[in-house]
């Protein structure tokens, strides 16, 4: 497939892996931020091409994983209203709340529909004015502009039967939170290429300076990731710490201005609780005051903070890059994608699910 196979070329991959091996003189730990990158690393076995001195740890960038428990509970509660059509991205449906997930709520008769774009939810709202259409707006900066557009159009068109349950999160505050932690062991980041396609990478420059950490904006194909690692390792070995852009075919320094403008129009920055991680200041987006009429929490009551799941699950540490899925005693035995104990096992972008799917549960590594 054009524009994809070029980035999966085995010869070029081996050259990059050799270049990385030829550069590294000290042990380095790098974190890829995005769940899509984690998925590609595990699927293609990119970590197995790397020298032992380079360790990849997986970051918090799985949008369904970090959506707080109480928002899932609220979505299920809202879907229980007979007049409601709850629209959601597909992979949110299997994420467990405190008791059950949206798929079970659907099986119990809730009108819950998978949409591919939030604008599809708006189409449903226009077509069915007697129903209340609620869109479950989650995700990072990648999905925020499209979600913002839905509210923007609803306001312009005066659509009154549409609202959004918003639980958006932002990447840079999460990176700061990881770096500020006393037990931080991350030397360099591969920043999420698609988030930066929207936001650009200016906002990462102060992070690189403040924490003296190289940040390489990186794509999602094997050669992107290997090149991102190579650029990061080159910086570390040279004692440099700047933001570099490996994913230049998609990312500009100032990002997508129109997308950012609609986000600014519709959303405001708020504190947000991350599932498995906890509260992070100014790390989320909520609806701006001018769009408060479209806030599902105003129509169906506010989300009440729930207590995160306890027990054996180590998804919080996995999301912060402190543990690997295979460190968990329940991995692949009591916890599987069919019966997940924690969110990182649910989404295809969740680190545990990626390990489960592509690696032997016993060995934790490809054969």
């Amino acid at each position, binding site marked *: 497939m054009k524009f*994809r196979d070029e980035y*999966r070329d085995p010869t070029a991959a081996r050259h990059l892996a050799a270049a990385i091996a030829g550069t590294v003189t000290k042990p380095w730990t790098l974190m890829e931020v995005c769940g899509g990158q984690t998925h590609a690393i595990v699927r*293609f076995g*990119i970590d197995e091409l790397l020298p032992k001195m380079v360790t990849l740890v997986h970051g918090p960038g799985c949008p369904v994983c970090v959506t707080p428990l109480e928002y899932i509970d609220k979505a299920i509660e809202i879907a229980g209203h007979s007049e409601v059509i709850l629209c959601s991205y*597909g*992979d949110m449906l299997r994420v467990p709340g405190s008791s059950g997930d949206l798929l079970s709520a659907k099986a119990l008769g809730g009108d819950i529909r998978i949409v591919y774009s939030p604008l599809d939810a708006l189409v449903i709202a226009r077509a069915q004015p007697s129903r209340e259409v609620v869109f479950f707006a989650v995700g990072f900066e990648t999905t925020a502009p499209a979600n913002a557009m839905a509210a923007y159009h609803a306001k312009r068109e005066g659509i009154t039967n549409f609202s959004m349950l918003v639980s958006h999160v932002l990447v840079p505050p999460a990176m700061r939170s990881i770096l500020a932690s006393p037990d931080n062991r991350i030397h360099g980041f591969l920043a999420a290429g698609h988030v930066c396609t929207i936001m650009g990478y200016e906002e990462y420059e102060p992070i690189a300076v403040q924490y003296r950490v190289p940040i390489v904006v990186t794509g999602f194909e094997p050669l992107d990731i290997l090149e991102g690692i190579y650029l990061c390792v080159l910086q570390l070995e040279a004692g440099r710490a700047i933001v570099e852009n490996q994913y230049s075919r998609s990312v500009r320094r100032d990002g997508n201005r129109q997308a950012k403008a609609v986000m600014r129009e519709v959303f405001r920055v708020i504190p947000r609780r991350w599932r498995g991680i906890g509260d992070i200041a100014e790390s989320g987006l909520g609806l701006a005051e001018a769009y408060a009429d479209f806030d599902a929490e105003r129509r169906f009551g506010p989300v009440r903070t729930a207590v995160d799941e306890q027990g054996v699950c180590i998804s919080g540490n996995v999301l912060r890059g402190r543990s690997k899925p295979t460190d968990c005693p329940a991995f692949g035995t009591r916890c599987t994608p069919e019966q997940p104990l924690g969110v990182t096992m649910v*989404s*295809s*972008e969740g680190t545990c699910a990626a390990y489960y799917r592509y690696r*032997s549960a016993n060995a934790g590594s490809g054969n």
Partner: protein
Amino acid sequence: MARLLDAVIRPAFADPELERRHDGAQLDISGPIAFTTDSYVVRPLVFPGGDIGTLAVNGTVNDLAMCGARPLYLSVSFILEEGLSIGLLRRVVTSMRTAAANAGVRMVTGDTKVVDRGKADGIFINTAGIGHILSPAPIGPACVRAGDVVILSGDIGRHGVAVMAAREGFGFETVVESDCAPLAGVVLDLIESDIAVHCLRDLTRGGLASAMVEIAETAGLSIALDETAIPVREDVSAACELLGLDPFHVANEGRFIACIASKDASRAIDILRQHEVAGAAAVIGKVGDGPAGQVSCRGALGISRVIDMLNGEQLPRIC
């Protein structure tokens, strides 16, 4: 109702058994038979490359073929939702007639029920089929042996993507057509050519991955696949990338895998490639005596990953 049967359904199928208007078909069958049934629910009812009628015939015909049997007779049972357009029903039964003729199978008994609007989704169809087993040796997952090769009959993922694109109205630049096709002809050609076929499996729901894992688990053996040998059409690949789907998990309706003795591999490929439905047949892997049930796949970068069954529905990814 009687008018519906007389005007649309019975003439389309035009089988002497149906014309006898008896309570059931009376058939004369001898020798070992394969017997299977499946119900068909698909949305939309019509999609590029076929419709629910094509599926309902080919699906059951293919299940018989996977038993090493020549499909002989089908039963057809319709559940129709009130308000269904007669034009659409006519199209579906015509597709069934054509598919049955192509597969050389007769539709000899049937039933039609109409339910209130909202109690069904347009048309539901159940077909059951009987076939005459031609394979001299048993065929099934338990017959697979370490050392067998795994042959795939062609590119994967087309049916699932075709249906999803039609249902969701994605408007891709190219139209992906379902691969829906009868497989009995090609399978029987293998058997009649004395190829040592140990297991056959059509790659419907759950796709290639689920079929391979089920076979490995039942056989108590391991299977190693080579991803670079598995054909996926460019438009299917692009759609899967876009939607976050894995072509290994996407449904097919005209593809199968065969586990056969390795000595027969090249002869089997030659036979398969003479048939249009298996023109791109290729050896994609090998059965081994590794951990029971483990299916691995060597990817483009030369590193193996584990292949897992599809868990529930494939859900499109968020971003």
